[in-house]
């Protein structure tokens, strides 16, 4: 496409959010540098998804300010925000009998007026993004016939079709086989966009991310480049696991070796 992807930075300062009386996030500061691939890490229940939702303005924060570039996310018109920030959530299901291409074309929603039809350009962008996730051959398939991993990749294509400068992904690889997981992360890494992705696989995060934020019990436990963040102490404190940090023989990036825990009988 002629569209040149360009990233924007995202900064969140002092974000606190409680949902139904439960404090999920407390005084979280996050910096996602322009053009970086930032990984959001943390154990189950540490507040990753909630933070991503807050950053994407799916709800009103109790406290804190979020900026995309130099604009306050919570003050931008929603449509304008959707042209700059695209979100892929973990579980986005539907009962509606849509075709794959229709789903991807939803990404054009913030770019078109209410009564405007989808143009040839819109379709071309959608098809191109489907090709990037390797699913162009399924363009006319029904959504319900896709596997979980395929659906996840279609959602990524839909988000890319929004032509955002910032991509927010909630565990984008959790349904993917290792080949498609690596391929997808490489694709977003080289997209030119700023990417913030919640990830569970720490070695994938170490291999692809240039910046990491680790959440623990609703607070930031560490942030920085992988080689600084991944220490045996942090992994013990946050995940409660014993691990050795090594370097990957081919890439030179950090690689974690986990020790099986002793199971009490």
């Amino acid at each position, binding site marked *: 496409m002629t569209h040149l992807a360009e990233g924007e930075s995202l900064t969140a300062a002092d974000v606190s959010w409680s949902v139904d009386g439960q404090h999920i996030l407390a005084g979280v500061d996050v910096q996602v540098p322009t053009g970086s691939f930032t990984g959001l890490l943390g154990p189950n229940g540490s507040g990753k998804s909630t933070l991503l*939702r807050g950053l*994407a*303005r*799916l709800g009103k924060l109790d406290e804190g300010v979020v900026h995309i570039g130099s604009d306050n996310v919570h003050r931008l018109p*929603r*449509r*304008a*925000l*959707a*042209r700059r*920030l*695209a*979100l892929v*959530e973990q579980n*986005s*299901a*539907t*009962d*509606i*009998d*849509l*075709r794959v291409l*229709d*789903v991807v074309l*939803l*990404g054009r*929603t*913030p770019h*078109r007026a*209410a*009564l*405007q*039809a989808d143009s040839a350009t819109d379709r071309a962008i959608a098809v191109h993004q489907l*090709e*990037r996730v*390797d699913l*162009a*051959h399924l*363009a*006319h*398939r*029904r959504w319900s016939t896709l596997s979980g991993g395929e659906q996840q990749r279609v959602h990524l294509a839909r988000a890319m079709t*929004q032509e955002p400068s910032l991509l927010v992904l909630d565990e984008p690889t959790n349904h993917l086989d290792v*080949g*498609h997981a690596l*391929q997808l992360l490489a694709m977003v890494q080289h997209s030119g966009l700023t990417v913030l992705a919640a990830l569970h696989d720490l070695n994938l995060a170490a291999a692809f991310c240039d910046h990491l934020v680790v959440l623990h019990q609703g607070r930031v436990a560490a942030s920085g480049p992988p080689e600084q963040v991944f220490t045996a102490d942090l992994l013990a404190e946050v995940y409660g696991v014993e691990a050795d940090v090594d370097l990957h023989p081919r890439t030179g990036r950090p690689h974690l070796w986990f020790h099986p825990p002793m199971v009490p009988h």
Partner: protein
Amino acid sequence: MSLPSVSRAERRTDAPAGTGGPLGLVFLLALALLAGSVVVSVALGQSDLSVREVWTVATERLGLGWLRIDLFGLHGAEGLTELRANLVWEMRLPRVLTAALVGGGLAVVGAVMQTLTRNPMADPYLLGISSGASLGAVAVIVAGLSLGSLGVAGGAFLGALGAFVLVLALGQRSGRLTPTRMILAGVAVGAFASAVTSFLIIWVADPHATQEAQFWLSGSLASARLPTVYTMAAAVLVGLLVCGFAARGLNAFAFGEDTAASLGIDVQRVRWVLLVVCALVTGVLVAGSGTIGFVGLLIPHAVRALVGPDHRRVLPLSALVGAVFLIWVDVVARIAFEPRDLPVGIMTAMLGVPVFLWILRRKVDR
């Protein structure tokens, strides 16, 4: 890409029904079908009129007589008496137009409600509107207020509005509407209003009032008159315009409200505006015709089965198909059991359900 790709020939298989097809043609056909249905159905009834007579009266009363629109050589009818002309203009035409407006309006509102609540069982009456209208209408009937059909319609409209306001008050939480709360509030208010309605009918125990209430509750177009047609037309037009502007946004609701919001839709605003507009349209329609079931629930599903789920197609086509459907069902209700004029609400389900099941089956088999 490095992973296996499927040959291009396979791409076009299982192409979506309707996408890329000559959809403009489908719209034109449906529109022509509606126009034809109006003219022909006005001619059908207990006293026979010819299509030629209907056409002549319609063009002349619309002040177009001098134009001598001689479509299909229909203009000018011999022996057209004032009585027959009045039958066309005062009785038949209002009834047919009411059928079209009610059918089209309910179908569009049903389609929108199903999307807004993400519930395929949703229909225009989901939010207690029909029960509220019934209570209002029956209250006027049993009170014996001799206000005529206009009084009953007024009572029905106020009842519908009251129930809807109550449902909104119960269904919102600090200004936010969530589908589950809305549906539960609608069911609760509906059940309460129905109970009070039954109580009123039994308590009054006046056979005449009971029969009138029963007739109203079954949904009938027999009392359709021109002034109500204008009101309904205005309401349906506003409803179509508002829903039409929201059509693209409604597509974004397919994956739930969070995805819609992340696609730039102001979910709460869309929900409030559409709900209020839909409630007003339903209120006006129900006041004039009583509760006519099936149309709002199943026409949108039938249309989706035919052209896919895109609201930019589903909404206008639901309006046209709903209108044509109710016109013909009412024709059957009028003439099939002459001289009895059956409430159309009974016929919609009896005729519509088999057709719907056929479409559904065809859809699943494909």
